[in-house]
């Protein structure tokens, strides 16, 4: 018997008791919708948490904090580690920054700004994606590059009450009005020498301004100076990184410098998939690292367990619906026993009869699963639309995080549901189908079944 004819048979049979079949499909659809909506909450919350985490950090970025030594101590990352790090497979760039250990005060005319100052390796920064919005990279030792938000915070030295606007920038009327590229600024650093504050001014020229950060909430006020300039500052302060001494700290007898040590070392992987491999390699080489992938792994593991639990609970609903399918199919076999007897008498193979009934139960299951999936998409949409409104109504001022997804249905979820539903309906239809093959021809034809 051809499959097409079997389907035709199944459809004809289903039409015989439309109400019963409809109710069974309805129960299956409800079970499926319950499973999908329940699990979609797990998927939705995971999506929100992961999105939040990924927005906070660059996914391909790996922080390298220090190297663990065999004697149990740790040492900071220095010049000699960089070639090792750069040689690791799939590493796009290794950026390294040394921080000026005091706030650098930059001034021009009656305007000034205090901010963090770094020495960096620009070729590595460019490889990692650093771009300028205007100007060029430094060539001379007294040339600097400032962050995009630096000019927006270069404000008047005068005492004013309303210096900042609502974005936290210096108001335009108090801000340095001209473009900074090509301008000479004074960098003032200080040190407490024998309890007395001493200051040193260094003249720098702005040659470039960094690109606007892609994330709106990130503020880039950093200033990048040359390595030689940092060394000059260290010579003045006598401390590594230009650190300011405490009032009671004695001046170091010997000049201390950073000497090739870095405060921030970041590795950028070529792609997200390569991160784990690089992290493993770094671990192997005794480097202490941090990457969002590690954190994501834990979060994803937690959500996977939660989702599995939700799918399991949802499956119970489908199992309950399968009782309906079992009942419907048993009734169908009983009602159609005379027809089955006639079919067997004229030569229907028991396997064909079994297949027709299994097809019927799986047909019911699949229609139910498809309807349930469509409905669950509707419910998911409604949940995402209504729950924020309800929470707002219930808790008043409580603001929900923007973009929070309560329910998300990735394509894999309906597939999981349809597979579960199909397996369950096959199992629940198996026994009635088996019973159909055992119908006694003579009894069935005498209407004794």
């Amino acid at each position, binding site marked *: 018997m051809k499959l097409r004819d079997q389907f035709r048979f199944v459809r004809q049979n289903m039409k015989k008791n439309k109400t019963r079949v409809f109710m069974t499909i309805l129960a299956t659809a409800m079970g499926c919708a319950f499973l999908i909506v329940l699990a979609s909450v797990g998927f939705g919350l995971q999506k929100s948490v992961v999105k939040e985490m990924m927005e906070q950090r660059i996914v391909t970025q790996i922080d390298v904090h220090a190297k663990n030594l065999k004697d149990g101590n740790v040492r900071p990352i220095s010049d000699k580690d960089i070639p090792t790090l750069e040689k690791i497979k799939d590493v796009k760039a290794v950026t390294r920054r040394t921080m000026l250990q005091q706030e650098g005060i930059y001034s021009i005319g009656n305007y000034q700004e205090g901010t963090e100052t770094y020495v960096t390796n620009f070729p590595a920064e460019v490889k990692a994606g650093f771009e300028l919005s205007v100007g060029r990279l430094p060539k001379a030792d007294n040339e600097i590059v400032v962050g995009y938000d630096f000019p927006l915070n270069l404000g008047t030295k005068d005492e004013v009450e309303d210096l900042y606007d609502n974005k936290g920038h210096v108001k335009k009327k108090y801000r340095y009005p001209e473009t900074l590229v090509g301008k000479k600024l004074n960098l003032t650093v200080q040190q407490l020498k024998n309890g007395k504050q001493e200051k040193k001014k260094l003249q720098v020229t702005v040659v470039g301004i960094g690109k606007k950060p892609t994330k709106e909430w990130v503020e880039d006020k950093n200033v990048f100076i040359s390595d030689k300039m940092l060394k000059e500052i260290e010579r003045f302060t006598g401390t590594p990184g230009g650190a300011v001494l405490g009032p009671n700290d004695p001046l170091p007898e010997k000049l201390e410098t950073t000497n090739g040590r870095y405060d921030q070392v970041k590795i950028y992987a070529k792609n997200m998939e390569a991160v784990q491999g690089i992290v493993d390699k770094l671990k192997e080489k005794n480097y202490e690292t941090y990457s969002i992938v590690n954190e994501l792994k834990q979060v994803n593991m937690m959500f996977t367990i939660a989702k599995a639990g939700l799918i399991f609970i949802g499956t119970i609903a489908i199992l309950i619906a399968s009782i309906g399918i079992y009942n419907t199919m048993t009734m169908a076999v009983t009602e159609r026993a005379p027809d089955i007897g006639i079919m067997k*008498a004229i030569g229907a193979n*028991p396997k064909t009869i079994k297949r027709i009934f299994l097809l019927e139960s799986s047909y019911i299951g699949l229609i139910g699963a498809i309807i349930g999936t469509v409905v669950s998409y509707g419910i998911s949409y409604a949940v995402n639309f209504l729950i924020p409104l309800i929470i707002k109504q219930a808790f008043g001022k409580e603001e929900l995080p923007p973009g929070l997804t309560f329910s998300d249905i990735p394509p894999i979820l309906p597939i999981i549901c349809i597979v579960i539903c199909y397996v369950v309906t096959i199992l629940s239809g198996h026994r009635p189908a088996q019973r159909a093959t055992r119908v006694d021809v003579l009894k069935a034809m005498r209407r004794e079944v």
Partner: protein
Amino acid sequence: MITVDNLSHEFVIGKKGRQTIIPVLKNISFKVDQGEIITIVGRSGSGKSTLLNAISGFIRPKEGEIWMDGVKVSELNEAKFADFRIHHLGFIFQSFQLIPSMTAFQNVELPLILKGVSERERKQQTEELLKRVGILDYQDHYPGELSGGQQQRVSIARALIVNPPIILADEPTGSLDSETEEELLQFIQELNRDLGITFLIITHDEKVAKIGHRIIELKDGRIVDKGVLV
């Protein structure tokens, strides 16, 4: 064509522990040649229906062998017997055994569907046969909308649709009036003559028995007479 050799069968009846064994067929042996019409007669309870059911494969005999078309069918399992039936046997039942939810056309078409014949071929063959049995105009009628004679014609068309060499008939005229009975018997003889189909008919009706080339009479599960009818 059909060989029944030393066939015996018994029924076990009653509740467990108080069962009674009733022998219904006792060492039945006979042969049917190709193109013969054989009628099996006997009183009620003589075992003629049991004999036909054993030959049809609806019951498995306790002892003996049945051969049909060179196949030892008494040893076939249910699935293999089903395949044998669909290719070699046609059935005519007393109560027609048509599926009530199917039209006359669908009932006749059913064996071809089970055989896996294409839809176009099925339509052509079914219409031809419905025309031959004279009920083409009723092809869209359900069995409940047809007379007894028309239903039996549908049943015959269904038996003939797979071109079987053997047709097994169980009281084929049992539900028909005498006029329709006459028509049906003529049609059976016509099919036998024109197509060479072998008929094995069970009946207690003398008129039906007379169309057989040979009559086998059963009494208490045994053959009591074998002879050629004039």
